[in-house]
Every structure is written in structure tokens, then in C-alpha cells.
């Protein structure tokens, strides 16, 4: 071997960019499967229309399924902006799946209409939308004195009109940023100067300038959205960390889904060439951080409220611990934290494709337990009283979220098929083709 051979060619040299970057045809088959699951579980859910409590649970379970999809879409937007600001090869390889997730935002607008039209069945502030209605409801014994007083003091934020306005503000903002990020991403690849430093810099700066401020605005608006449509299921409770908890849950869910998508795609070109173990390992580490951050926030909130032991705050936890909820609460801690935490500690598992498929799928499953534990105990018939006897409608929490998420997955995969899987005009593309441990 001579000194002239610097090792940039031959077996240790960079790989060739695959000639076809389009999404493999197999994604169409996955999409068909998602459609079948959606139809089957949608039909199963119709069973619950038969009874009053069934119909009630149908709507609550729908909200849970909806929020799971919202977390995928919103979390993807947050990650998309963060990776534009931070840079890094993990963000480049994850970019097109994230873009596809964000482009489902119009679906989330459509899917939210049932909640908007039926909100008086979910929220006290929607059932009794003004001070006199609240007072009447209190006199009739429909709500407690505390509910009446707190709902009356929160009318500016929590009323049907405000809710609709807030919904439109959140989605108008998300829609604008998502549209711009997605449009620019295509224009970036079509840039006549593509591949030059001038082009790299131009687009990098443009994406950074939009993403930076939008991250802040997104976090504020997303917090508002989850406070209005999830936290306010219990009007009497206050929590300043609620929005952040959802943000972390979004990161948790989106990383799990993103890693799962990339591993499944990596059985086919172009991801077979592009998706390296290094980036999978990086994303696994990031997922581990989110697993840890999630329990940190959840437990910190619990510890503070437990220490304070105030009658304003503590019932929220009592409703979620007593009367059978202990099992769900424990399952939530074990599935959402203990198991992913212990598994993701291992370097070998984070680098294994076959094992990470199961880990990420389990993490997505754990999200459902967490959402169930957050949503169902808000309602009087379930607070501190988890029961199945005479309450079979609660099984809607199994069928409806699966159906709603399957519908979302159908559109996610549809969007995924619309674009090449690699954003070519990015300096990271070349780096992704280098051997795992560059010389």
C-alpha cells in the first residue's frame, strides 16, 4: 500500500447516493393495513353507540385518540424546527418523516370538528357557558360550588367562543409554519445553485430564522391548546407544568414513531444506504433523554402537590390513585418509564434495528396508557372509581383511539409517499454517505 492512498475510496470510502430516493412501494401496503385497522376498529367502536354511558365514553375516547395524533403532528413540528436550529445528521435523516407528520395538520383540523360540536358533553365550561348558567347548575346540584366559582373566574379563556378562537389561533399558526417549512424544503432541493456553500447557507439561515421564534410561539400556543381542551376537563385544577409535560410527551411519541419509521424503511432503498447505526444510536439516546425528562416532570409535579397536600390540588391525584386507578397509575409508571428506561440504558439495544422496533412500538403503546390515566378520571363517574361492571363503555378507550390513530397513520404514510426520503441539498447528506466511523 502506498502513501498516496488516503483511504477515501475502496471498501472504506463513502457510499454512493442511491439513484432512487422515492419512498419504497411497500409503504402503500402499510397504508392499506392502516386503513383496514381503522375500519375494523371504527366498526367495533359503533357498538358503544347503543348505551348512554357508551356514547359518553365514545367521545372521551375520541378525545384521547385525537390528542395522541395531535401529539404526533405537533411534536413533529417542534422537532422539525429544533433540528433546523440545532443541525445534526440525526435531524437530516429524520426530516422527511417529520415533514410528513406535520403535513397531517389539516386532518387534525377536520378531526377536531366532532369535539367542537359536542364539547358540551365533555367540558363543564361548555355545558354551562356563562355565569348565570353556572349558578343555575350549582343550585340544581349538577356541579360543585368550587366548580361553579372557578369556571366563572376562567370564562375569558374557557368558554365555547374562546375555545373556538383559541383552536383557530393554534392551528392557523401551526398551519402557516408547517406550510412554509414544507414548501421551502422542496424549493431547497430544486435550488439551481444546489450543492454550493452559498445555497447551503442561504437555506440554513432561512430555516433558522423561521424556526427559532416559532419554537417559542409553538410551545406557548400548544400549552394553551392542551390546557383548554385537556386540562380543563377538570376546571378546578391548576398546573403550571401541564404544557411542558405535553411537549415532552410529544417528543417521546414522535421520537418513538420516527425511529420506528426509519427502521422499517431501512429494509428498502434509499434508507438501506442512508440510515446508519450512528444516527439510530443518536436518536435512541435522545429518546432516552425524553423518557427521563418525562418522569422527571411528572414525578416533580406529583411530589410538589403531595408535599403541599392542599385541598385545591390533591383531589386531582386522589381521583387517579384511588378506586382501582392505582393499577393504571402503576402500569403507567412501569410502561411509560421503568421499562423504556431500563431497556434504553443498553447501548447494544439502541444500536439494534430488530430490538428497537419493539422498544419504540412499546413506547407508543405506553403513551396510550398515559393519556387514558390523564383523561378518564376527570369525569365524575370515573374519578377515583375505575370499574368495568355496568360500565362496558369504558372499553371504547381501546377501540376508538386505535381507530383514530390508524386514520392518522393512513394520512401520515400518504404524505410520506409524496416526497423523496432524503433532502439532497444539505451538507449532511454527504456526511450520511461516509463510513460509520469516518477516518
Amino acid at each position: 500500500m502506498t502513501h498516496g492512498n488516503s483511504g477515501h475510496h475502496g471498501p472504506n470510502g463513502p457510499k454512493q447516493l442511491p439513484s432512487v430516493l422515492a419512498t419504497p412501494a411497500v409503504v402503500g401496503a402499510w397504508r392499506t393495513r392502516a386503513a383496514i385497522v381503522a375500519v375494523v376498529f371504527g366498526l367495533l367502536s359503533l357498538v358503544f353507540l347503543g348505551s348512554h354511558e357508551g356514547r359518553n365514553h365514545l367521545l372521551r375516547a375520541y378525545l384521547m385518540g385525537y390528542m395522541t395524533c395531535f401529539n404526533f403532528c405537533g411534536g413533529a413540528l417542534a422537532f422539525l424546527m429544533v433540528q433546523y436550529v440545532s443541525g445534526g445528521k440525526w435531524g437530516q435523516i429524520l426530516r422527511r418523516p417529520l415533514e410528513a407528520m406535520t403535513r397531517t395538520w389539516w386532518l387534525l383540523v377536520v378531526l377536531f370538528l366532532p369535539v367542537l360540536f359536542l364539547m358540551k358533553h365533555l367540558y363543564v365550561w361548555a355545558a354551562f357557558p356563562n355565569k348565570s348558567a353556572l349558578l343555575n347548575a350549582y343550585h340544581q346540584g349538577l356541579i360543585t360550588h368550587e366548580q361553579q366559582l372557578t369556571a366563572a373566574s376562567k370564562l375569558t379563556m374557557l368558554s365555547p367562543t374562546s375555545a373556538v378562537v383559541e383552536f383557530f389561533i393554534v392551528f392557523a399558526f401551526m398551519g402557516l409554519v408547517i406550510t412554509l417549512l414544507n414548501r421551502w424544503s422542496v424549493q431547497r432541493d430544486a435550488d439551481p445553485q444546489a450543492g454550493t456553500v452559498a445555497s447551503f447557507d442561504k437555506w440554513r439561515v432561512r430555516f433558522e430564522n423561521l424556526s427559532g421564534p416559532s419554537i417559542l410561539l409553538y410551545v406557548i400556543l400548544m400549552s394553551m391548546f392542551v390546557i383548554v381542551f385537556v386540562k380543563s376537563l377538570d376546571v378546578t385544577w391548576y398546573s403550571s407544568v401541564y404544557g411542558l409535560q405535553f411537549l415532552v410527551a410529544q417528543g417521546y411519541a414522535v421520537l418513538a414513531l420516527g425511529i420506528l419509521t426509519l427502521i422499517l424503511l431501512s429494509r428498502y432503498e434509499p434508507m438501506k444506504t442512508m440510515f446508519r447505526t450512528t444516527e439510530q444510536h443518536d436518536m435512541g439516546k435522545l429518546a432516552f433523554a425524553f423518557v427521563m425528562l418525562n418522569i422527571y416532570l411528572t414525578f416533580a409535579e406529583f411530589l410538589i402537590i403531595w408535599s403541599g397536600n392542599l385541598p385545591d390540588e390533591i383531589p386531582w391525584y386522589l381521583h387517579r390513585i384511588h378506586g382501582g386507578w392505582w393499577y393504571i397509575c402503576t402500569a403507567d409508571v412501569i410502561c411509560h418509564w421503568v421499562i423504556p428506561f431500563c431497556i434504553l440504558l443498553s447501548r447494544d439495544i439502541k444500536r439494534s434495528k430488530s430490538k428497537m422496533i419493539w422498544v419504540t412500538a412499546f413506547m407508543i403503546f405506553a403513551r396510550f396508557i398515559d393519556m387514558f390515566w390523564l383523561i378518564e378520571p376527570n369525569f365524575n363517574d370515573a374519578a377515583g372509581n375505575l370499574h368495568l361492571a355496568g360500565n362496558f363503555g369504558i372499553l371504547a378507550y381501546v377501540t376508538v383511539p386505535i381507530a383514530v390513530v390508524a386514520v392518522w397513520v393512513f394520512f401520515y404514510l400518504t404524505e410520506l409517499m409524496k416526497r423523496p426520503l432524503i433532502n439532497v441539498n444539505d451538507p449532511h447528506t454527504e456526511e450520511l454517505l461516509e463510513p460509520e466511523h469516518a477516518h
Partner: protein
Amino acid sequence: MPVYEGVYGLIAEFNTPTELVNATKAAHNAGYRRMECYTPYPVEEAAEALHFHKTGVPLMCLLGGIMGLITGYGMEIWVNVWGYPLNIAGRPLFSWPAFVIPGYEWTILFAGLSAAFGMLAQNGLPQLYHPLFNAANFRDGATTDKFFLCLEAHDPKFSVTETRVFLEGFSPVSVVEVDH
């Protein structure tokens, strides 16, 4: 401590990591096992070519963490339930949520210390003398821009003459015999 004398090994100097990795792979294929690569920055292919073993540091870190958790949490339980029981706002003496944070801190502390000291215990540092520094070209190049492969004399396959011929086959900058 035994007194080492004679030849420590032969070091071949290369200008590029690729040459080093290729030579290392060939040496491994030829049956050499007692060997080491020296590079100015981490070259993971070199570790792979050496078939470098997995270290025990992750396990020590894990065991340290578990020990810390048991110690911290156990101490909280002992102090609050038996050692110095206090009625705090009517809460039970075994108030497990309050013990989580000290338990967590001890976990991190023990895990961190176990990783650091476990690493030192296993890699033989601090080491005040190493025979390779007897070679002038190693002293000058090993931390700047040269890549070295050392085939050590205690390898059963080692022979001062044949191993030198073997190493020279890779056209290194030099092959130097290093004494203890």
C-alpha cells in the same frame, strides 16, 4: 514485581490511519494477538481491527448506580422510620415519595464515581512508565500526526526477524525495535 528485560516489541509507524488499520487487520489474520494501535485521536476501525474487547465499565456503572439507589433510599427509610422518626404534617413515617430524590441523587453519584474509578481500575492508569516512550519517533509522533502498530514480544508468534519482515511488508515509514 518482575523485572522486564529485552525486547518489548516492534513498532511500525504509518502516516495514515487507513494503512494502520489494514496492517492491523493483516496482523490479526496472520495470527498475532498481543498487539496494540496508538493513534493521535480515536480511530474506531483500529479498535475493530484489533477485535478490542468490551469493557466492564458499563456494568460497573450500573452496579454502582444500583448500590447508590439502595444506599440512599435505605438510609432515608432507616432515618425516618427507625433512626429518628418525626411526625411531619401527619404523613406516614414511610413517606416513599419524599425519599425518591435523595435515592436518585445517590444513584447518580455512585454511578458516576463507579464509572470513573472503574475505568481507572481496569485500564491500569495512572501509569508512570511505558516502554514505547523509549522510541524517539513514538515520542514525537504518537500524539500529533503518526499512527503506530506495536506487535508485542510476548506474543507466541513474535520473532524479532520474521515479525520485522512481516511489518516491513506494509511499507511503513519505519519499524523500530523497542526495549523494556
